[in-house]
């Protein structure tokens, strides 16, 4: 029952996506443009679904509910980061869109190469982008493995589960490009809405509360301090300073992710982007229900296997809801992982083909590059499986790591648009300094002393930006 419902949801969506993708496919566009940026014809609705699909993934549903269950208030980052990201997106995305139109850009690395007139910078940025994307794929594989383990019982080894998840994701993306993902994103959003309503209506009754608001009242009585920072585990260091810095880092990094950057190219008009920015924050009010479910699980005494906070929602629903609800949840979570995961793999593949392979082997034809990109995607999926198996962090922690990694490209984008004197060598120097500030143990120890309670990724982004400005200013005085 649970397995068949889950399968029906995933296979039905794939079939619908294929039909939709075939119907929309038009002639006159090169294969790469059609596959990677949907032929630049995304109107407001498709744009909404795809960009919402990228923001509301398993990170949001399994990650945030687990965070609410384990920490309490720190889960509010879901409310903070989307609004701030949309406010920045309102200014930044139309500029990205216009640059894409003007120069016929397909990927983010294209923009770096064109804007800074430095093809080598495109290669560097493509590799940095792929690294951050693979950490994001890791989130989706972790979640998908959890669902497979739940469906197939405890006999499934972590390696087989992750491999199966990666295989499903590749199968999902191979068949078609971004247009099919847009359809699947729509289905997934509607299913998510239905699921949130079904789960939330029942939650009060199942934990002995009178109403949804009563769940919030009771959880604050049972766990004093859960609703305010630093939350249930003060030693975790998730205070107000963490919320502000982590949310800013997420907001600054959101549109810098190569797939989000590329999404701006896919829009039909700058107006479609701006209108989307107005409505998108309202969608994040739905986190009220995700937090509700996390707190409900806490009141019900849910204890996921091995204390794995990513499994809180699945364990809670498995124990307290009928089988069909669990099947619906399992199917929806599969889509929540597959849709963004496939877009992430697709983006890494097009970055590799266009911006790493093509500059090194300029003689290749469009079709050959596409073929090589699709092969490279298998390799990327393999790396993501390896990342998944070597880490057992919470989805939110992995997510913040991915934002930390992509934040390294943020100074090059923001300064590129708003400070005309920014130089390619400055961006490279900033990148090197930023990675050092992010990854060197000595640096992270220093930030913990100087900026206690901050998200170190924001500090590293600041170091990066300062170096970009300093080097660009020096180069201006001594033109090489």
């Amino acid at each position, binding site marked *: 029952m649970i397995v068949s419902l889950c399968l029906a949801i995933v296979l039905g969506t794939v079939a619908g996506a294929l039909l939709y993708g075939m119907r929309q496919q038009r002639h006159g566009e090169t294969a790469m443009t059609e596959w990677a940026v949907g032929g630049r014809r995304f109107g407001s609705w498709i744009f909404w679904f795809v960009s919402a699909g990228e923001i509301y993934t398993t990170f949001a549903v399994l990650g945030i509910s687990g965070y609410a269950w384990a920490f309490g208030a720190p889960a509010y980052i879901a*409310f*903070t980061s989307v609004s701030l990201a949309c*406010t920045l997106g*309102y200014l930044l995305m139309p500029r990205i869109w216009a640059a894409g139109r003007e120069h016929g850009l397909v990927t983010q690395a294209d923009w770096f190469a064109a804007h800074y007139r430095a093809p080598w910078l495109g290669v560097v940025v493509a590799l940095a982008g792929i690294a951050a994307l693979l950490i994001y794929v890791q989130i989706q594989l972790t979640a998908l493995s959890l669902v497979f383990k739940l469906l197939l019982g405890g006999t499934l080894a972590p390696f087989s589960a992750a491999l199966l998840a990666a295989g499903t994701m590749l199968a999902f993306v191979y068949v078609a490009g971004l247009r099919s993902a847009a359809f699947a994103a729509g289905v997934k959003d509607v299913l998510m809405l239905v699921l949130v309503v079904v789960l939330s209506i029942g939650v009060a009754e199942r934990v002995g509360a009178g109403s949804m608001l*009563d769940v919030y009242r009771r959880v604050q009585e049972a766990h004093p301090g859960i*609703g305010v920072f630093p939350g249930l585990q003060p030693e975790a260091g998730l205070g107000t300073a963490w*919320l502000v810095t982590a949310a800013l880092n997420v907001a600054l990094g959101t549109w810098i992710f190569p797939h989000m950057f590329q999404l701006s190219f896919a829009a039909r008009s700058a107006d479609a982007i701006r209108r989307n920015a107005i409505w998108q924050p309202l969608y994040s*009010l739905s986190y009220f229900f995700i937090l509700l479910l996390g707190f409900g699980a806490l009141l019900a005494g849910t204890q996921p296997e091995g204390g794995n906070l990513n499994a809180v929602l699945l364990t809670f629903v498995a124990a307290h809801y009928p089988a069909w609800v669990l099947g619906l949840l399992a199917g929806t979570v599969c889509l929540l992982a597959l849709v963004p995961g496939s877009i992430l793999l697709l983006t890494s593949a097009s970055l590799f083909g266009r911006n790493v392979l093509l500059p090194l082997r300029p003689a290749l034809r469009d079709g050959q590059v596409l073929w090589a990109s699709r092969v490279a995607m298998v390799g990327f999926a393999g790396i993501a499986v390896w990342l998944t198996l070597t880490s057992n962090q919470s989805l939110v922690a992995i997510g913040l790591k991915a934002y930390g990694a992509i934040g390294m490209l943020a100074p090059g984008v923001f300064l590129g648009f708003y400070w005309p004197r920014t130089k390619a060598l400055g961006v490279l120097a900033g990148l090197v300094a930023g990675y050092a500030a992010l990854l060197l143990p000595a640096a992270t120890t220093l930030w913990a002393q100087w900026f206690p309670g901050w998200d170190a990724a924001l500090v590293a982004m600041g170091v990066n930006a300062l170096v970009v400005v300093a080097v660009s200013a020096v180069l201006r005085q001594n033109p090489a």
Partner: protein
Amino acid sequence: MTVRRPHRWLLLVPFVWQAALVPWSNGVQWRPLGLPFPMAWQMAGILVTSAVLWVVYRRDQVAAQLENAAANGSKADS
């Protein structure tokens, strides 16, 4: 000619509401509808953000029209 867009300073409001005022909101004891205040504050901030973006969008449309009119006007002159 470019039209000035002073209304874009409004885009700072979400950052003040949802980031700068976080330490203050964390100390408020009042629980609207039984919700923890910092959570209710963030949710209100989402409504404020959408409202601010809507106002800025409308003002931007007006500014774009002025810009177009000015561009057409200068073409007609020359």
